């Protein structure tokens, strides 16, 4: 089955390792991604801070083009995912806005129906492969790994997940890979987004709170579902260590990197060497060895 794929700017920039792993895992699961040609930036949560109506035009152009190709669009960045959902929601609820956007789309020969579904690859994997299906494909179970899932804000807020999914349903993918699910209380707490770059003192604090909690919960890694969170949580660990005098070093894989490892895909195909905080198979072996004496 082929899905229309909306990469978003990150996946073509600093998060190419996330994209590599996404393609590799979809391929291994027999799913195909077809990139939406000529897609434009969704505007993230930034454009609307300056211009309101135009912000919806950005999403609408992508949705209108995707509608010509199928009934679904897949967005692996939770900011893109939320913005596309918000565009769909607002165009359905605000006729004045809809009229303006329709006019603008008509000026470039596009038409938007409003029927397209926006999905995150996590939803695709859970819906079309399922926990059992995934388990059946695991070649190298992540035995002994304590994995804390971190979802951040925008995958579950302000719009509900599709098909009645919950974050707890997503959590089940972790044991399916053979790993121990860490009950990570802060899994939907904000990482601060671009505050790490703009108001650093506050941004670092927000990231620190998450990393510290993950460490307390004895997680070996914190797995993310968004390239923005992924960068935010790994890039500032050094500065945070210096600022708070607390070593919070912890690998932050994108979720398809982790799935790919369990599926036995190569580290190169998954872009693991591109992570700022390395994640290697040795980690699993060490963690497993550490567990051994306790079991004996």
């Amino acid at each position, binding site marked *: 089955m082929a899905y229309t794929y909306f990469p978003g700017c990150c996946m073509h*920039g600093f998060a190419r390792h996330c994209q590599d792993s996404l393609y590799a895992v979809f391929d291994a699961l027999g799913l195909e991604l077809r990139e939406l040609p000529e897609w434009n930036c969704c505007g993230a949560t930034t454009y609307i801070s300056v211009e309101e109506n135009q912000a919806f035009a950005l999403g609408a152009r992508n949705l209108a083009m995707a509608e010509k190709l199928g009934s679904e669009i897949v967005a692996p960045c939770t900011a893109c995912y939320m913005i596309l959902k918000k565009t769909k929601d607002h165009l359905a609820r605000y006729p004045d806005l809809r009229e303006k956007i329709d006019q603008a789309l008509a000026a*470039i020969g596009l038409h938007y129906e409003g029927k397209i579904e926006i999905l995150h690859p996590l939803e695709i994997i859970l819906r079309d492969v399922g926990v059992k299906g995934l388990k059946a494909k695991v070649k190298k179970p992540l035995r002994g790994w304590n994995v804390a899932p971190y979802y951040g804000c925008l995958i579950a807020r302000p719009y509900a997940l599709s098909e009645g999914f919950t974050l707890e349903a997503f959590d089940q993918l972790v044991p399916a890979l053979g790993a121990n699910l860490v009950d990570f209380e802060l899994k939907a707490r904000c990482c601060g987004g671009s505050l790490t770059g703009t108001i650093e003192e506050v941004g670092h604090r927000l990231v620190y709170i998450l990393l510290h909690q993950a460490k307390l919960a004895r997680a070996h890694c914190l797995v993310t579902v968004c390239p923005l969170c992924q960068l935010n949580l790994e890039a500032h660990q050094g500065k945070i260590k210096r600022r708070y005098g607390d070593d919070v070093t912890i690998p932050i894989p994108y979720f398809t990197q982790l799935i790919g490892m369990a599926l036995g895909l190569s580290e190169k195909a998954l872009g693991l060497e591109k*992570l700022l905080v390395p994640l290697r198979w040795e980690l699993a072996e060490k963690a497993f060895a550490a567990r051994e004496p306790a079991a004996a």
Partner: protein
Amino acid sequence: MAHPTFFKKVKYEKELERDLAAEIIATPGGEKILSCLQCGTCGSACPLSVYMDYTPRKLIGMVREGFKEEVVTSFAIWLCASCYECTVRCPSGIGVTEVMYALKRIAIREGIYPRHFPVPVLAKEFLKMLKGSGRTNEFWLVLRVLLKTAPMKLLTSWPLGLRLWQRGRMCLGSTRIPKAANEDLRRMLEVIEASTGGPLKSPLPVTVGAQPSGGDLKKAA
């Protein structure tokens, strides 16, 4: 302009700017601010409220009453990270996040924001880049914002840039979409601009040099 912590407790009717509430009510998400219970759920849920000068609850209350100056010069609106905790928890169905966006827009439109403050500069540069090439590139965006707000920060930021570069995660090339597609996009934005009443009224003056400071609230000259 009064510093926010010294705002007057009582305002005379003629000092209140009632247009503010009207503008927010006309914004998708802000329609129901008159039903705000002032319960404080939004501020309790907000992960940034402890750093804010006014909590989201207080901002909504002040918007309703017409305390425009205090609201648009607040530090709080720039701290909002669009996490939507407030919005999903508000018992009155108020899109608090959308109200925060609207307040940022008003502040940017009227040129009111702390000098050398990176949040609005980032937003403006982001727009420029998006309109120019249809997509955004993190590297050039960060570089432009740093040059305009705190060039000295380049000294502390380059190690991260280097680490990303070493791992092939820095994309210095152009990420633009094909020319015809970019023109389509710009055409769309123009049509919308024409239907909503022109471009921004005042361009943001930006000065290079000083470090960003949250407390340095000045009306841009």
